[in-house]
């Protein structure tokens, strides 16, 4: 295809520039908080930073999306350096990746309340952490605060951007609610009341330790009745609620409505959703990697239980060694450093698509034991490619739509963006009877060629 010239970008309005400057000022204040030697000033810089970033982000979103007529707003998406893999995207990716490396490996507590490279950002949160959790802040509390703030602020942006679609509005509000309540406030309050820190919205095999002997043991030991409930909750969610909910609604009930990783992808990652690779090659890698991860975590969990049940004799330390390496390679490097750090380059769902064992498990259920599908409206598809473009999971939605077929894919998280972006009203997320689920429209004749293997 002939490479076209880049069309001219319209000038950013002075008001928008001002709000972006406020965000930049906030990031600068954060840098000052990090570098300042004086603890009192540090705290001031830190809260000023959060205030400026928050105010700037929300004001910018309102100007950028709230001031235009409600509708699909993705002008210049591929043309801007920030969202089209330009210089800004690379810098953003480097900064995010760097932050995760520092967080995971250079910010551990030295036992005296020093948190390595992030120390100066952890301590300004002490008073807030005391109020919420009844204990001083640590690097994970800093991370949780940033994470939740990112979902809330960029969630605000998504609410404005997608305000024409009630599905998107309710779904965005849902991920904001679950992150703030279940992944931030409740775990904090549990600690305040001397209970185990527990996340009710994360289950095995994503939060794999919840069904490992060590965690089960310590939950029951330290949490008493509540701890027993937590173990019970985790097991029921993994093995009963997950199949039942997925049967009725597809994996979206979790991946794009509840999950914190999904929540970040749908809000902070929204500007990058189109960057996911739609090629068949990428799909093949996806299948190879994600089911391997699922197999690994099942095997490690089984080994640990065998190890536990046999009193540590059988299979020696294999389970523990596997657990350690899994925690490093998958838990830290894959889900954190790559999963979020590569947002601006590979899209917002790299982890969910290629790595998450929970997504693999949900996907198998969705593909084989669910009523969920995305229906195609008769013969109305014009093969424009907008649906594939916005698919954060890299599904080439158009291949199905242009053949009049329903989209039933293990990886689909049901974000509904293909339906939202379709200019001809062709796609719709539906929970129908399982009979005829794969039935293509009679109004368009599938070419029945091998398009997808």
């Amino acid at each position: 295809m002939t490479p076209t010239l880049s069309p001219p970008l319209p000038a950013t309005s002075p008001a928008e520039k001002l709000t972006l400057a406020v965000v930049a000022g906030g990031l600068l204040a954060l840098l000052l908080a990090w570098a300042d030697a004086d603890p009192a000033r540090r705290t001031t810089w830190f809260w000023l930073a959060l205030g400026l970033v928050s105010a700037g982000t929300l004001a910018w979103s309102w100007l950028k999306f709230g001031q235009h007529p409600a509708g699909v707003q993705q002008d210049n998406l591929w043309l801007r350096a920030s969202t089209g893999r330009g210089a800004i995207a690379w810098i953003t990716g480097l900064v995010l990746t760097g932050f995760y490396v520092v967080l995971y490996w250079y910010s551990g507590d030295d036992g005296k309340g020093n948190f390595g490279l992030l120390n100066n950002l952890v301590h300004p949160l002490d008073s807030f952490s005391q109020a919420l959790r009844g204990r001083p802040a640590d690097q994970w509390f800093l991370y949780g605060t940033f994470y939740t703030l990112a979902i809330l602020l960029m969630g605000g942006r998504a609410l404005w951007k997608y305000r024409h679609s009630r599905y998107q509005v309710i779904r965005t509000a849902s991920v904001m609610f679950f992150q703030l309540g279940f992944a931030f406030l409740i775990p904090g309050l549990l600690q305040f009341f001397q209970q185990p820190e527990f996340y009710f919205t994360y289950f095995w095999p994503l939060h794999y330790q919840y069904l490992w002997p060590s965690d089960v043991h310590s939950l029951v030991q330290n949490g008493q009745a509540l701890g027993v409930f937590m173990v019970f909750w985790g097991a029921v969610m993994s093995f009963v609620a997950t199949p039942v909910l997925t049967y009725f609604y597809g994996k979206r009930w979790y991946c794009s409505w509840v999950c914190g990783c999904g929540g970040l992808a749908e809000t902070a990652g929204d500007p990058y959703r189109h960057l996911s690779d739609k090629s068949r090659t990428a799909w093949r890698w996806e299948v190879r990697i994600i089911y391997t991860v699922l197999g690994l975590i099942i095997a490690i969990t089984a080994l640990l239980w065998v190890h536990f049940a046999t009193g540590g004799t059988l299979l020696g330390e294999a389970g523990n060694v596997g657990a350690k390496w899994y925690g490093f390679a998958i838990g830290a490097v894959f889900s954190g450093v790559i999963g979020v750090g590569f947002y601006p380059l590979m899209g917002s769902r790299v982890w969910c698509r290629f790595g998450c064992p929970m997504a693999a498990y949900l996907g198998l259920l969705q593909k084989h034991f669910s009523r969920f599908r995305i229906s195609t409206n008769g013969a109305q598809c014009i093969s424009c490619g907008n649906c594939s473009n916005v698919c954060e999971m890299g599904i080439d939605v158009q291949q199905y739509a242009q053949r009049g077929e329903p989209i039933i894919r293990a990886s689909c998280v049901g974000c509904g963006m293909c339906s939202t972006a379709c200019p001809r009203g062709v796609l719709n997320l539906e929970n129908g009877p399982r009979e005829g689920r794969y039935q293509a429209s009679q109004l368009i004749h599938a070419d029945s060629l091998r398009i997808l293997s």
Partner: protein
Amino acid sequence: MHLVILGNGITGVTCALTVRRLQPEARITLVSSESAHHYSRTALMYVYMGHLRAQDIKPYEDWFWNENRLALVHATATALNTAENLLSLADGTTLAYDQLLLATGSESKLFDWPGQELAGVQGLYNLPDLEAMTRDTHGISRGVVVGGGLIGVELAEMLHTRGIEPVVLVRDARYWGAVLPPEEANLVDRQFQENHISVRYQTELREILGDAQGRVRAVVTTAGEEIACQWVGLATGVTPNLALASTSNVETDRGILVDEFLRTNVPNVFAAGDCAQHRQPGAGEVPIEQLWYTGRMQGETVAHTICGQATPYRRGIWFNSAKFFNLEYQTYGYAPAGPVPGLSSFYWEHPGSRAAVRVYFRSEAPHAVVGFNALGLRLRHAVCEQWIARRTPVATVMSQFGSANFDPEFFPQHEKAIVADYNRQFPGQPVALKQRKGLFSIKN
């Protein structure tokens, strides 16, 4: 059998895919001067607006052609010799065929306006047009769009997203007056207003004025107004591309003349899609159809005939769709723009003017439904088609209207308001809404 298809648009490609299915052993070659691979013409605007990249509007990945043994030739065909079954290409080579499909598409229609040859004056039909528009709208402040049809509103939207002020000239008293009834056209006009785009109705282009460098500097309208601008988009329709057909003994009129099997006057030479002109169009149908959907249907039909299963082209129950800025439009069946004897219509509009529905039905009992217009809400194609095919009475359609609802979950459901409005307008036979759209309802 060696099938050569001239043109890799939706018609040519659909034909190639269908022949591959019907005759797995056939040798198939697609020839195109425009692009190496098939791309979606309907998506050109999204590339300009930055929603998509050029490579994103290819409906199939590049490996697809080779794996399905569809040979692609990126070259201009210069002459057709039907006596020897030979196609000459611009690089001097020739291509022998057993069967030939002409799917050469369209070119922008011009009306010999003074100044139409100036730099910065163009239509939007193909990739070179997109390239030219991208180049010529760089750094400009105003563009004039001529034409009140689908491409007209697309061009206006494209300019608008670049911060370029569009001025739209529309010949009729309302937008798309030949297709949309006044109420529907009014909703489209509201989209223009919301986006602060000025539209001059009942105004045509008289002349385009150039500067010393041969670039457009203004247009003069039939109202005598001179509008300064740096670019002019001509969206006054397309006309069949006959460049190759005219080098041969294939009969042409406005388009390449075909019978109902899409055969030309020359044996083994077929024509389909935008470039074909039906000698005897079906009742109420036009001889030249220039739509994505009809191109696809004709491509599929002609493939059957080429493979020896002679199949007449039957368009079936009409459907079409478009999007005007943020307003989606779908139409099914017979949906005329103005009053027709023997035909009645019921029109409902949402109080906020964001959505509307029109149902066309026969005036005489049992008031069979014949067509639909939907704006700002989505109707299920299969359900509407079935209602029309079965001549379902309008009262039945209204009582089951929820089963045609294709809007996403949680969207406001208007069926109650629609039926209440219907009962107000047609009090003779009160209708009760029986079927709403539920969370689990699906009609395939």
